[in-house]
């Protein structure tokens, strides 16, 4: 069972008369020889780590060793002013919570990477809380998101060192958008469109971590990744279709990744990482200062 494109997934779903989560379970069963139950339990374990990481970031003292991150998620979660609604504020705070747990050597589930590990937990826990999504249904949502991630891994990249933050938080936002659409009853075409919109919103996003740390701007891009996921899902669920099909959007992503300068791909040599202030922070907090020339 080969999955190389969204067309493959679409075709398998039609042939098997199955949902995308069922197609992904079948893919994993055939690939690894695990039973269906083992695959589902594996995803359940990931879901539980995600939920735990959100809770830890909102309750524990999470100040990163560099001091750049200092319990930001709690501040947002408890903020008195709501830019939009309370639940939107909470969704963003959850992504930041996991980013802080990650920076403070806490336990997270990389989805698809550690640097972008805030987005899927924020999307899933927000769906559980705001829409009463059950644990079993949330697992199906994660399986849908894994399909999108798999296609990006196959045809572009999720690594910051290869595709910048487009590859990391852009992919996570696309995964999240597809899961939201599925969990709110959207069809496969709408799932595809939501992923397209999310990637389009992150196309060309660079990876320029201050002092080479997975802290700033990573935490803000995780927050914005959640907003991207919900915006993209909202647009797709309204019946608007992506002009460019997902398979082509991912190829465009790969082209942009190749065109991106190595200075903008996790090497801390360009962008925010190369600002005067960032270089000062680097000298202050990091023991070696020859990261970028």
């Amino acid at each position, binding site marked *: 069972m080969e999955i190389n494109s969204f067309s493959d997934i679409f075709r398998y779903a039609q042939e098997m008369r199955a949902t995308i989560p069922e197609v992904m379970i079948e*893919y*994993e069963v055939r690939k690894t020889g695990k039973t269906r139950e083992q*695959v589902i339990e594996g995803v359940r374990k990931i879901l539980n780590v995600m939920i735990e990481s959100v809770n830890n970031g909102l309750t524990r003292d999470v100040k990163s060793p560099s001091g750049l991150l200092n319990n930001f998620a709690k501040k947002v979660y408890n903020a008195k002013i709501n830019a939009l609604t309370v639940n939107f504020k909470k969704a963003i705070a959850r992504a930041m919570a996991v980013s802080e747990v990650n920076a403070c*050597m*806490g336990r997270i589930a990389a*989805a698809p990477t550690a640097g972008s590990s805030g987005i899927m937990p924020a999307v899933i826990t927000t769906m559980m809380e705001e829409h009463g999504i059950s644990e079993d249904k949330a697992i199906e949502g994660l399986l849908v*998101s894994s399909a999108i991630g798999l296609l990006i*891994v196959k045809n572009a990249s999720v690594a910051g060192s290869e595709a910048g933050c487009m590859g990391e938080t852009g992919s996570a936002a696309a995964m999240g958008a597809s899961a939201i659409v599925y969990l709110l009853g959207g069809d496969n075409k709408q799932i595809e469109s939501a992923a397209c919109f999310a990637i389009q919103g992150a196309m060309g996003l660079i990876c320029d971590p201050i002092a080479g*740390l997975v802290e700033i701007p990573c935490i803000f891009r995780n927050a914005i990744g959640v907003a991207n996921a919900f915006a993209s899902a909202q647009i797709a669920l309204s019946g608007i279709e992506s002009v460019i099909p997902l398979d082509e959007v991912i190829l465009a992503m790969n082209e942009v990744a190749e065109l991106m300068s190595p200075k903008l791909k996790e090497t801390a040599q360009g962008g925010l990482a190369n600002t005067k202030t960032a270089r000062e922070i680097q000298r202050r907090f*990091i023991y070696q200062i020859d990261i970028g020339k």
Partner: protein
Amino acid sequence: MPSIFDILGPVMIGPSSSHTAGAAKLGYIARQLLGAEPKQAEITLYNSFARTYKGHGTDKAIVGGILGMKPDDEMLKNSLEIAKEKGLRYEFKLIMKAPKLHPNSARIKLFDLDGNKIEMVGSSLGGGRIEIVEIEGFKVSFSVAMHTIVIIADDIPGSIAHISGAIAEKNINIANMFVSREEKLANMIIEVDQDVPLEVLEKIRSFRWVHYVRLVEPIL
């Protein structure tokens, strides 16, 4: 073809799959190669590992691994204090430019209470995947994706037959075998499909021309 658990996961201690999770794995493998409680560790970090060092918790991750913590163990964060409690002395050296080595590489030398030592070099390839590239001066290349038997023995005729015989006797299937030679010694890396009972290792150890045998188990 990737697994869906390459997308959803791994479960790990942050902040970096290469600089933290992979580094913990390297320490854990060094501990298995020593085969006893380590009392002293000399760790050399190269290239990107040396540059980010404490920023990504690479020091805590490697020391934690040496103490037997896995990449998803929340105690990794406190490993340097735990090392003090357990009486593990450690020191770090940093080498910024080692062009022949992968950007994320570490040399780990461990000693136990009886003065036995092991020295290895490993690289963290990204996404938590690792490669061991040197053991006791022998160039090697394996990833501990499977149960792996590491042997150093005199380079004599029939040694491979005896060792593979001892493994086959217990119906263990050899998946891959790599042999390299340095002067009069041979190094064998044997990857097998399942766990290896202690008696197989004891039997190999009983051969007079075998100097060193260890089993390294994969870390999920």
